[in-house]
């Protein structure tokens, strides 16, 4: 028996030494399933957000699992419902962290709950990819926090860009800002007001209480102001507000420009139900990050997303959702960072995520997990350019890229109509000055 035990121990040691030979910094990738926690609202007013992030994970998992996993470990996805409320998000985050020692990454954490859950996840040393535009994270000191989308102020600038440089009927000169009266939603207001007024426009803010049963008096105030365009997001309440706006305006829809969060099948369904698809298609303008929706990374993403319909029937609806694309990339970058460092220890692989996203001189550009692993095994350094395009993390782990101006078609798909030029973007940013 003693000889047998010693032989087994030796065999285990040899296997451990052989495993994951792609790096030298880590202490092995371990065994058993790895978990990606989708910490987001799945119920409550923002229940439409969580499924978009869950879809990202369901698409990313087979990209990894079908190509050897993370050192053989399979990636699984699990929902943790924050209900979009900090009071519910904190216990959900604590429970997630306390009961899952195999967490490799956390995705989600929207503006509803990021302020409260990001410190919890950071303390647990779990890399997170948050879908929040809050300015408090512009210079965050949380090393495990990552943001793959720009702060809200850049969305605001892009909306001003639509109003000034977008296709006809732009340019607009008098804008009504209709956002929720919560801190997160109002983050759009100051930069949009500064930029638009300094570039010659008139602006008035009409904050609304999200989730209210009606907005008739608010709408009457907006109509009395006689804007030629409305800037809005109003997640969860856009249908009610815009429906009443159309009714009180004699059936005529005032053109409206939405944030990147309005590029969303749930938002499209809600607003088209309230004002009709034709009016939505004709009068909506949106801003989004410049996605190609093509290339090897997107092809693998869309293949896996469609396949995910067997477990989550709504998954294919998120084929053009920016947050779904970015979180997909975030999960794959995390897996590659684990492989590159040969470590399951987040304190070791977390810094590597940024290196893989930004690349360095001489880095090999890869678009899929498989290509990334192959390049790492060949001893190369890599830069991952995924379904959402290039990432450029700054020292605060914030990444951003340029904006495009979009509309919806009748099927609810995003259609690019224009791209802001660097000069236009710079002019608006300088005018915004925040």
């Amino acid at each position, binding site marked *: 028996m003693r000889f047998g035990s010693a032989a087994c121990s030796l065999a285990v040691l040899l296997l451990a030494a052989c495993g994951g030979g792609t790096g030298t910094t880590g202490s092995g990738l371990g065994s058993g399933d790895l978990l990606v926690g989708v910490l987001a609202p799945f119920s409550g007013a923002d229940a439409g957000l969580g499924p978009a992030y869950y879809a990202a994970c369901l698409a990313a998992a087979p990209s990894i699992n079908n190509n050897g996993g993370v050192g053989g470990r399979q990636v699984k996805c699990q929902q943790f419902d924050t209900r979009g409320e900090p009071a519910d998000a904190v216990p959900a985050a604590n429970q997630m962290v306390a009961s899952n020692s195999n967490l490799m990454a956390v995705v989600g954490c929207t503006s509803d709950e990021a302020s409260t859950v990001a410190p919890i996840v950071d303390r647990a040393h779990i890399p997170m990819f948050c879908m929040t535009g809050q300015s408090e994270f512009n210079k965050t000191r949380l090393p495990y926090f990552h943001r793959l989308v720009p702060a809200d102020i850049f969305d605001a600038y892009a909306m001003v860009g639509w109003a000034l440089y977008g296709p006809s009927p732009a340019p607009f000169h008098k804008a009504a800002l209709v956002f929720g009266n919560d801190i997160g939603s109002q983050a759009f207001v100051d930069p949009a007001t500064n930029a638009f007024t300094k570039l010659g426009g008139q602006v008035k803010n009409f904050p609304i209480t999200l989730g209210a049963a009606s907005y008739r008096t608010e709408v009457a*105030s907006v109509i*009395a102001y006689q804007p030629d365009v409305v800037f809005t997001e109003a997640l969860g309440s856009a249908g009610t507000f815009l429906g009443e706006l159309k009714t009180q305006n004699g059936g005529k829809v005032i053109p409206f420009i939405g944030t990147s969060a309005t590029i969303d099948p749930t938002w499209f*369904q809600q607003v088209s139900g309230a004002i009709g698809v034709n009016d939505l298609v004709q009068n909506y303008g949106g801003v989004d990050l410049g996605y190609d929706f093509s290339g090897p990374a997107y092809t693998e993403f869309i293949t896996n997303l469609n396949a995910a319909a067997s477990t989550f029937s709504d998954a294919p609806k998120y084929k053009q959702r920016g947050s779904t694309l970015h979180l997909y990339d975030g999960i794959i970058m995390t897996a590659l960072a684990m492989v590159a460092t040969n470590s399951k220890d987040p304190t070791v692989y977390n810094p590597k995520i940024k290196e893989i996203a930004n690349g360095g001189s001489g880095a090999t550009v890869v678009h899929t997990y498989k290509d990334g692993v192959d390049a790492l095994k060949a001893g190369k350094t890599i830069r991952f350019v995924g379904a959402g395009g290039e990432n450029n993390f700054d020292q605060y782990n914030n990444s951003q890229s340029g904006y495009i101006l979009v509309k919806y078609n009748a099927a609810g798909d995003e259609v690019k109509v224009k791209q802001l030029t660097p000069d236009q973007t710079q002019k608006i940013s300088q005018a915004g000055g925040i």
Partner: protein
Amino acid sequence: MTIFEAAFGFGLVSMSVIAIAAVGFTMQFGITNMINLAYGEVMVSSAYVAYSLNRAGVSIWIGMIAGGIFGAVFSFLLNRVVYAPFQRKGTSYLGMVIVSLAISLMIANILLPIVSYNSVSYAEHAGSIIRFGGVVLTVNQMIIIVLAVALMVGIHALLRYTRLGKAMRATAANPSLARNCGIPTQRVIDMVWLITGALCGVAGVVAALNSDSFAIASGGGFLITALAAAVLGGAGQPYGAMIGAVIIGLMTELTAAAWSAEYKEVVAFAILVLVMVLRPQGLLAKRGALAAAG
């Protein structure tokens, strides 16, 4: 047109919707001693019943009748299957509130996989706009106001002039004495759940119609306004709930016009708090629920 005239008109619509919901809620409490926090979810469930019919091409007004019937049956069963057994076992008021809260969460979570979290809208044109000076209302909003007035008159007639209404008031005032006087209190309570459930169902449909779009998450908002109007008027007082609905409905809209939409609910609920401080029993409460009805 001034914004205040318009806001007054919108306040009439809001108070109509709130009144239908609040009267049903407060009658449930006044007669059955049950603070039913699942009321908002029953409203939303009824709104979805109307929505499913509306999607099949049925007029929303017929859908509203179906929603009312659904609300009546659902509420009746809710009481018979869940609340009444707990009450028979002597569960405390607080315990019953917790039970109703649990039922509320269960309904919302059972509905979620059926109807999904997405907002939906009725396929019903708002109708042409009617102007009375500065008051601008759509045909649908006018119908909602007329419907609310008709229902309030009906409730008044029921409580004041019918045998059932008198039996309800007797049951509310003293159930034991009512039973000893030969009033079939159990049957009366069943009728109360059917009638208030129907009000709840109709309220859900008009609230959803009034909102242009609604979702499962709307239930909480529906409940809060109904609860506020009921408490403001005096718990268990149908006429108090009507007055509470008028105050909350008008104040929210007029505040939005005079000050800022950000503060409309703050002002409405500040009035509620003020009334509670000065008159804790509510505006119309006398000793015994439904006392003002007679």
